């Protein structure tokens, strides 16, 4: 069985695999049974809209696919980790950093870290700024840090939601359709999803 990894997001460990001519989404926590079927157009959406990298790597088993995604995930995270200073030390450094230099760092966060999806790195830095004496010494920089933190969080949510937004293959429940029960079933399913428990807490 050939498994073609068509696209993946290394920072999230998510991959889109073509197997038996069907597209499947593989995401942590990995389990083959949990891999959802995707519509064909989701592949281009993933690359164009959600920043997935295209790929042409072929594997022989799901284990190999998962190993590969795991390796990429660890690699990306460790690269980010090397750049992330310990937040306590960062605060000490920030407090002795001249305002113009700090402003350049903020600029880097805004133009590089957030757009490239390095949200953890950005947030660690921004939180360190907000925990330092910059709040009182340079309120303008503190205000920018707060705005960037908000933006980083929003973009992170949007980015994570992107995987969920990829259109799944539609399943047709023909018996429900015949009896006009699709709408009611979907409504009940939505309530259960929202509650995150089949039984209502009582």
């Amino acid at each position, binding site marked *: 069985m050939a498994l073609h990894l068509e696209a993946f997001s290394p920072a999230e460990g998510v991959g889109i695999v073509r197997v038996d001519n069907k597209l499947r989404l593989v995401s942590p926590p990995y389990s*083959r049974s*949990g891999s959802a079927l995707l519509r064909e157009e989701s592949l281009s959406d993933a690359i164009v809209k959600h920043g997935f990298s295209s790929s042409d790597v072929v594997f022989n088993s799901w284990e190999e696919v998962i190993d590969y995604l795991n390796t990429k995930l660890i690699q990306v995270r460790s690269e980010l980790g090397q750049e992330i200073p310990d937040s306590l030390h960062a605060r000490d450094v920030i407090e002795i950093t001249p305002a113009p230099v700090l402003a350049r760092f903020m600029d880097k966060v805004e133009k590089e870290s957030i757009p490239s999806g390095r949200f953890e790195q950005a947030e660690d830095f921004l939180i360190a700024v907000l925990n330092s004496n910059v709040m009182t010494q340079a309120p303008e920089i503190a205000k920018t840090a707060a705005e960037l933190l908000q933006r980083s969080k929003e973009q992170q949510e949007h980015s994570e939601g992107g995987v969920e937004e990829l259109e799944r293959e539609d*399943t047709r*429940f023909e*018996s429900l359709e015949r009896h006009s029960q699709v709408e009611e079933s979907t409504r009940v399913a939505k309530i259960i999803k929202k509650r995150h428990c089949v039984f*209502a807490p009582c």
Partner: protein
Amino acid sequence: MKTVTFYSYKGGTGRSLALANCAIYLARLELSVVALDFDLEAPGLHYKFSTNSEGKPLPVKAGVVDYLHKFMVDGEIPSSLKDFTIDLKVPGSDKPLATLIPAGRAPSPEYWSSLARINWHDLFYAKSAKGVELLLDLKSRIADELQPDFLLIDARTGITEMGGVATTVLADEVVCLVLPTQENLEGARAVMRSLRKSRRETDLKQLEMLIALSRVPPAREREGEKEITSKIQRFMNEEAQDLRDRSPVLKCSSYTANKPWKRANPSGSAVA
């Protein structure tokens, strides 16, 4: 088709046997029955309906777990229910008794492996989850393809996803078997209250609920069956703080081994 789910908060109440007896009782009234084994972690209906004198189970090709697995792994809904059903006959005749949809080929390594690979979160709670629709569709298909008068579901004990769907989503009536112990009664009452709340939240028709008291120990028989059942009925109907409804919803009856419709043979199966 009326759907009756047999539920118990704790195990050992004789729930599956009660369901099998009920199926036989309905068959005697010439009503057609489908029995569905949703107790996936400890399935047993294929034993209860067996007529084998040594207690061997009915031969099972596939069941509920295979149905779920096909949907989750292959993304397909099986085209027919035929592969998942066993037609039961009245022993010694060709007369239909019931149709069984077993949980699967349990106990076998393949069964446990398939069960372990079902991701309940993905089936019911993920954004793209379709588990509720899948099981409502299964119920609808049973009504269409098998056309029974009754669908009897053997639900898992405690609080599980499949037990929840069998009681809160699929059932028209819930028979809750309890032992007369505090942990049984308090657990069962909490679940029954939760079912009422679930049905309100989902705007589905309220459930009929029946508490069936099982295995009253001889020491308590002195109290008298009527006293015990009415005491339990009062306990079950105590007003819940967040369910502002005092109308009694739970009828209570006792289910003991000497009831005339109990036909258990020594192997533990229900088929006489």
